[in-house]
């Protein structure tokens, strides 16, 4: 993979310098190799609970078929 390609996958976000310094101190001796990798980790953790999308429901006919199937397996009464 070329460096040029790599660059396109990242963007720059500004955070206050004192915060950056605190984070740098915090990640010393941990598995995080850079300020960016730590901030990415934290943001992924925060964002993971937020995204939501509605689930597609069965049609009435399909629902009955599925229910029959699950009853046959003894999983539904």
């Amino acid at each position: 993979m070329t460096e040029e390609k790599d660059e396109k996958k990242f963007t720059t976000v500004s955070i206050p310098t004192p915060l950056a310094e605190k984070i740098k101190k915090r990640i010393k001796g941990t598995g995080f190799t850079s300020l960016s990798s730590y901030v990415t980790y934290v943001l992924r953790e925060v964002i993971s609970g937020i995204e939501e999308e509605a689930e597609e429901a069965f049609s009435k006919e399909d629902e009955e078929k599925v229910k029959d199937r699950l009853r046959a397996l003894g999983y539904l009464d």
Partner: protein
Amino acid sequence: MPKPHGGKLVNRYLKKETEYKLDLPKISINTNLAEDVLNISNGVFSPLEGFLYKNDLENVLKDKRLENDVPWTIPILLDLDKNNIKEGDTVLLTNQESGLLAQFEIEEIYKYDKKTLAQAVYRTTDTAHPGVANVLNMKDQFIGGKITLIKSKTREYDEYNLTPKETRYLFKQKGWREIVAFQTRNPPHIGHEYVQKTALTFVDGIFINPIIGKKKIGDFRDDVILDSYNTLIKHYYLKERAVMSILRTSMKYAGPREAIHHAIMRKNFGCTHFIVGRDHAGVGNYYGPYDAHDIFSEFPDLGIIPVFFRSFSRCTKCGSVVNDKICPHDQKYHINFSGKKIRELLKNGEIPPEDMMRKEVSETILKYDKPFVE
């Protein structure tokens, strides 16, 4: 219940069977690829809608994520050496066993160094590793594009083959909010039961999900595995707390990367927790015994909670099944659950000791003249 991986459960079924053209070029694919097609179309591999494009493959190998940052660790690739197809073509995928399977939009044809691929996924290029051998045997070009399932043939054990949409519906109907998934390739011994019930204690239900498919000589047959689990559930589980459904997919033996892949599939089935044992999906000595545990720390956004079990054995001092966190006694008091020993006894028609395997389970296995793949 967690949302599907990537946010949406993929459904790549053709709306009407008449919507495809029979005169399209046909490409025959092997059974493992056919299973991938089915797993893509029914959402087991959500958010994948087809076989990987090159940029996704590069991301998966380098960052263990798709290009859109969603965690993904095992490349799902279609390899082909057919030269008379080009980008922009639509073809029909067929399989010897399944017949006409899916429509495939060829969006990208590319090459990738197979040794680099093997090294990234398996951490080795040793051809003795079965996953590496498979990669090196792949054809020289890969094809990225979306698939749409036309039809899937009914097969043996399909009554146990629930799709993610069906399991999610079932869990909702049962009022389960937290579900732990257990993957298996063997009939259950007491150690398995201990692990399952320990995890089940803290959630609403257990989803027992045997992997069914191509087996090695000497492995337990699929029908034996299913029957033995049915017996265990019937005699030793609360009916309303356990569900068994099969998963048709090939083992890659990619150790830690595969543990993440296995967790993602179970998240798509609607599970909140996934049991990860010692040397999960490992083979030989290619991975450390707990590498498959450690890798989870790289994925705070995975969306399914791993439940780690380091080891378990029967302690003759405690008089019960224990794990390394709860038993203070010396190893000399510990009897390990040796799958090999249980297999040998069963091979000789003998019932394993009841502190190794439930009598009802042993008897179920021994009802078969030939419980092992020959």
